[in-house]
């Protein structure tokens, strides 16, 4: 919630960390208010669902195939983004999301990067289609405040920038594919 005007985790903010005097507590910015300090998160959940937040295997596997194995380097490619706890503080801080509630937002972008960076995943193209649009990754103007407020140091701004690179790369790559740009 908003504590003294800043998005913070209420469970992790102690009075001893705040300046003396009155403490202002408000519901999270940029979200519809359900009642009192409760905000509606249905729209956020839809955005998370829209980026397929699960591993889509490259080929069908059975239990007999055993566990997926990864090298430490393959793990490092996405590990920092997997720390996201969906607290929505980045959404509350993001002025672009405040101006345009349809913007997919930093949290979903970080989660998208987490799964697209996973060596076990084969759904990269499916997810990239979700961020090419008007309310996708290009709505971000790189304010960077999402990374500053993130309590888990996920660095969503970095994820957004990497997604921008991948989106641009994918756009030009389409001209080289059989059938060209559709």
């Amino acid at each position, binding site marked *: 919630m908003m504590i003294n005007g*800043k998005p913070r985790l209420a469970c992790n903010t102690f009075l001893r960390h705040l300046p003396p005097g009155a403490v202002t507590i408000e*519901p999270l*910015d*940029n*979200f*519809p*208010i*359900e*009642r009192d300090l409760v905000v*509606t998160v*249905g729209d956020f959940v839809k955005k998370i669902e829209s980026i397929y937040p699960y591993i889509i295997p490259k080929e069908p596997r059975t239990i007999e195939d055993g566990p997926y194995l990864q090298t430490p380097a393959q793990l490092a490619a996405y590990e920092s983004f997997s720390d996201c706890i969906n607290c929505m503080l980045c959404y509350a*801080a993001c*002025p672009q999301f*405040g*101006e345009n*509630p349809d913007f997919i937002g930093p949290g979903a972008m970080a989660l998208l990067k987490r799964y697209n960076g996973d060596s076990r995943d084969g759904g990269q193209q499916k997810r990239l289609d979700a961020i090419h649009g008007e309310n996708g990754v290009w709505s971000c103007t*790189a*304010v*960077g*405040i999402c990374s*500053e407020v993130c309590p888990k140091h996920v660095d969503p701004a970095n994820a957004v920038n990497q997604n921008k690179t991948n989106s641009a790369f994918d756009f030009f790559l389409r001209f080289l594919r059989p059938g060209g740009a559709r």
Partner: protein
Amino acid sequence: MSERRPYRRPMNPTWWASPPYRAYTLCELSGVAVAIYGAVLLQA
């Protein structure tokens, strides 16, 4: 979930001037200087 019309608090119109966003605002304002310099170069 309630059937009431969702209430979304309006954004502060001067959010760009508040302390956490000042670095971003200054960065964006540097575009004005670049535009002026570009205009000077075009006239030269």
